[in-house]
């Protein structure tokens, strides 16, 4: 049997960070027979996929707040439904317009189409074409999520085979489809939507997925790809759909933890890692903040690349070129979050009574230009004065999170820079952001503020301090082409392996990037098991869904 624990080497694999990717990697490694320990700095498990009681009786999904991207292959392999995971699709959504109207969204394509027609007959027609085209681009990308990117500078047979595989995928498309796809990947969502739609509010709604979590505006080239990143998930096979995890996003990591424990793995909370121990060019374990040393045959970091290599590893153990590349890796945060406990449901005056639209994503940004202006504020070092908010009231669908009749509302806010005019965020800045957002909601839902029992505000400062995301970037690194595939996080090191022997990466800073997807964790585990010559025990990636 390989990897028998040696005398002072208790674990086969030590994973730093009990976020979803760390847990996914841990589960696969444990299932393959390794003795696995996950260490977590906080006193709770889950990283950015957590459910926490921050106000008595109220469960908050205080970081990530919706689910779609989590790979179904992983759910199946790790038996997550058996361990309590249930995803509830949302039932609608709405964009409120400045003029007091709204654009409703529904679960049903045809209902959406009818609603679009209320705003523009032409756009309703275009919606079919648009959906078809975007679905096609999604289908192309999805199989790549669960594959290790090839290194195009390498002549190893494996990399060449993988490039050939990629070539085959491209070869399966017509010349026209290839060209349209490259065009789509490289253009801005604003230009892309202009080719289909005329109504500003419809474009404003559809552009949302292209900016969430990104330090790009809807007019930035490359933003169309980000849309794809958010569209390639599914809820129970319904591609592009989004949903809530019953009991909050923590249910995902809770189920993963249960699955890990069932496979014999351990998790230790309140164990912040001070240093990754490197001896003779090989990772041999970690030292915790309290001085305790834990030895392991390999260390797998679920922290972002900057935190791992610039803060937890001794720079002298790394090639200078690699360190320089990690420094160049862009992790600028662009978002903030308000988590609100409500005494009663807010009433949005524009919505008809009882409309299902409130059981989904609610926005107040009714044009691309407003969104882009919000981005201009970010570029100049300020949070958006007219922010884009993605508001959700998961308790409309999942009442288990709050006392009867009460609600939890999650407001994802963009854009919020990692620093305000070059300075660290202050409490006053944070409160200013909170008031700006609350006032925006109040405009569309009068009386909203009076229903507020408690608000938690999380700027990039809080995200970094608590979850450990450098500069508060929710994807552990921006999703632009210079940081995707074989460039993520660093050219030449995109295959989950670091320059230090037996030190691996499994976080969202690696391919295919962020979102509660689990793919980086699974891909990293696949590489580690291959390296350890252990069977993977993974189901094949679904070619299409």
């Amino acid at each position: 049997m390989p990897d028998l624990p040696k005398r002072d080497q208790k674990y086969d694999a030590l994973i730093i960070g009990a976020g979803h990717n760390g847990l996914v990697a841990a589960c696969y490694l444990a299932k393959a027979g390794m003795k696995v320990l996950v260490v977590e700095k906080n006193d709770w498990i889950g990283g950015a996929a957590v459910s926490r009681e921050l106000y008595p009786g109220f469960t908050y999904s205080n970081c990530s707040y919706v689910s779609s991207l989590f790979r179904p292959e992983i759910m199946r392999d790790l038996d997550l439904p058996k361990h309590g995971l249930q995803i509830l699709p949302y039932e609608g959504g709405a964009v409120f317009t400045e003029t007091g109207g709204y654009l409703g969204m529904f679960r049903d394509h045809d209902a959406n189409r009818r609603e679009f027609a209320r705003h523009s007959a032409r756009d309703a027609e275009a919606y079919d074409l648009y959906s078809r085209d975007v679905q096609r681009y999604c289908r192309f990308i999805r199989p790549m999520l669960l594959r290790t990117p090839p290194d195009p500078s390498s002549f190893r047979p494996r990399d060449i085979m993988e490039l050939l595989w990629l070539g085959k995928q491209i070869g399966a498309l017509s010349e026209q489809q290839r060209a349209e796809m490259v065009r789509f990947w490289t253009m801005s969502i604003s230009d892309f939507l202009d080719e289909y739609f005329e109504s500003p509010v419809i474009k404003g709604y559809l552009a949302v997925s292209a900016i969430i979590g990104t330090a790009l505006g809807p007019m930035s080239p490359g933003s169309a790809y980000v849309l794809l990143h958010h569209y390639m998930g599914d809820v129970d096979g319904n591609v592009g759909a989004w949903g809530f995890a019953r009991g909050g996003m923590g249910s995902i990591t809770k189920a993963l933890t249960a699955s890990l424990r069932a496979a014999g793995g351990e998790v230790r909370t309140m164990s912040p890692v001070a240093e990754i121990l490197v001896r003779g060019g090989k990772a041999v374990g970690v030292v915790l903040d309290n001085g305790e040393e834990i030895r392991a045959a390999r260390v797998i970091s679920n922290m972002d690349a900057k935190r791992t290599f610039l803060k937890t590893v001794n720079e002298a153990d790394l090639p200078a070129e690699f360190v320089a590349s990690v420094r160049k890796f862009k992790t600028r945060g662009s978002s903030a979050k308000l988590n609100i406990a409500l005494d009663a449901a807010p009433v949005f005056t524009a919505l008809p009574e009882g409309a299902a639209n409130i059981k989904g994503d609610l926005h107040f940004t009714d044009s691309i230009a407003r969104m882009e202006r919000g981005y201009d504020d970010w570029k100049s070092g300020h949070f958006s004065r007219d922010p884009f908010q993605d508001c959700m009231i998961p308790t409309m669908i999942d009442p288990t999170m709050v006392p009867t009749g009460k609600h939890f509302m999650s407001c994802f806010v963009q854009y919020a820079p990692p620093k305000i005019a070059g300075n660290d965020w202050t409490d006053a800045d944070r409160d200013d952001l909170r008031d700006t957002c609350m006032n925006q909601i109040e405009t569309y839902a009068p009386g909203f503020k009076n229903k507020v029992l408690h608000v938690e505000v999380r700027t990039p400062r809080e995200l970094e301090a608590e979850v450990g995301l450098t500069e508060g970037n929710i994807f552990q690194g921006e999703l632009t082409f210079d940081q995707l595939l074989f460039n993520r996080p660093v050219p030449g090191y995109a295959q989950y392996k670091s320059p230090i022997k037996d030190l691996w990466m499994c976080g969202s800073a690696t391919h295919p990037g962020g979102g509660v997807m689990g793919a980086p964790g699974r891909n990293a585990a696949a590489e580690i098991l291959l390296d350890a010559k252990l069977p993977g025990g993974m189901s094949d990636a679904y070619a299409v869904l």
Partner: protein
Amino acid sequence: MPTPSSEVIVIGAGPNGLACATRLAQKGAKVTLLDALPMPGGGATPREFAPGFTTTLAHLTRGIDARVAKGMDLERYGLGFQTLQTTLLGPNPVTISRGKTASQDADFARLHDRLTQFARVLAPFRAIPAPTLGKGNDWLTLARLGLGIRALGKTEFRELLRMLLTNAADVAEDDLTDQRLQGYIAFEATLGAWAGPRSPNTLILLLNHLATGPDVLAPKGGMQAVAQAMTKAAEAAGVTIRQNARVTRIVTNGDTATGVELASGEALAGKTIVSTLHPGLTLRDLVGPRVLDAGLYTRAGHIHSRGGTARLTLALKSLPNIDNLENRLIIAPSVNAVENAFNPVKYGQIPDVPVLEVFFPTSLDPRPDGLHILTANVQFAPHMPVDGLDQARAQMLENTLRVLAAHIPDLRPLILHCELLMPQDVAALYGNPGGNWHHAELAVEQMLFLRPLRDLSQYRTPIEGLWLAGAGSHPGGGITGAAGWNAALAMEGAL
């Protein structure tokens, strides 16, 4: 009845039209070159902007495509260039000469070297038809060029792959510490583009500039010397050039182009029609929706052609009293200055503080009367100003002169005449809708096999006998003639 005419009709006597027509004539075709303006040269043609003062739309170049210069023997027709240094104006000006700053900034030299190396291995792609995503590639050539890229070495090859689609601002801020030089990189990358330096896909625009030519050049005798030399070469090759001949329609018979109609009503028959005009204009307006298939007609309307550059020309009593005025002068003090100048343009508004590329052509080629001219590319300007063209133009002029006067304090009293062309003015004068220098914006989604559209990237159109050869085709505009030459090469097999 159409008058019996040429085998080949080339529309538009800009550098691409002249290059294409010359090459075809040299290969034995009977070529007529039709041009709407009074004189040939397109962006290099002289135009009177004030009584007794002429200028050209393009004021500087990075050089004529080497094949064009050689094939047209332009040196023989008196064309020569002077390499310019670039001076970044500001409280502490910096002069850059051949990729080095006067202060020998090591970071800058290193970055410039790296980018020049990247540009060197990419440059050959400008001189071949864009590789296709389907059949018809010259695999041998592509393999050779691919090997050239790989020969950069593993590290540089990886860096190239990373940087290819990155934004200019990050590169400038990652690799340089001097804010002025960061601003320079940001400005240079976005010159002529409709994008700010923080937009992804902007570094490649800088690489394209460097691949066109490592230095900025001023033709001896002014930019019109390019027009004159190319015209002489075309005439020597037997091209018939007709000015004031605006083409209003490309005549088709079924799916075949058979000739053109002029604004005068005159009809000319031709077996091959080559348009160097904007591809969208060519297909939608000159060919028309009755001939094109609906999909192509729609997509031709989606070609982005937003001009972001205004053009200022001043007639001056004398040269102002500043140093380095024989250099190319840039006023773009930082990355944010360039980005902030772009922000309002997205909403059709005017930037308060535009960034500029300034040149005094008369400092190199003095006028007999001792008066002087200042030319400047002013960025960014909205292609569709929300406040209407006249108001926007006045505001743009005001803001531009304010920035200029801040750097050249004695300028205002020297001004005899001034003209500012907004992108819409450029479009009206030169016939490129949107007013973009490259006709179709040079942006990654409109480059190579996507330029100007996926099915038009090989210069051929679905209309039999109709070809594209202008700046809207690969590799884009600039006073180089490369697209026209490439198109002529592509057509040779077919003629």
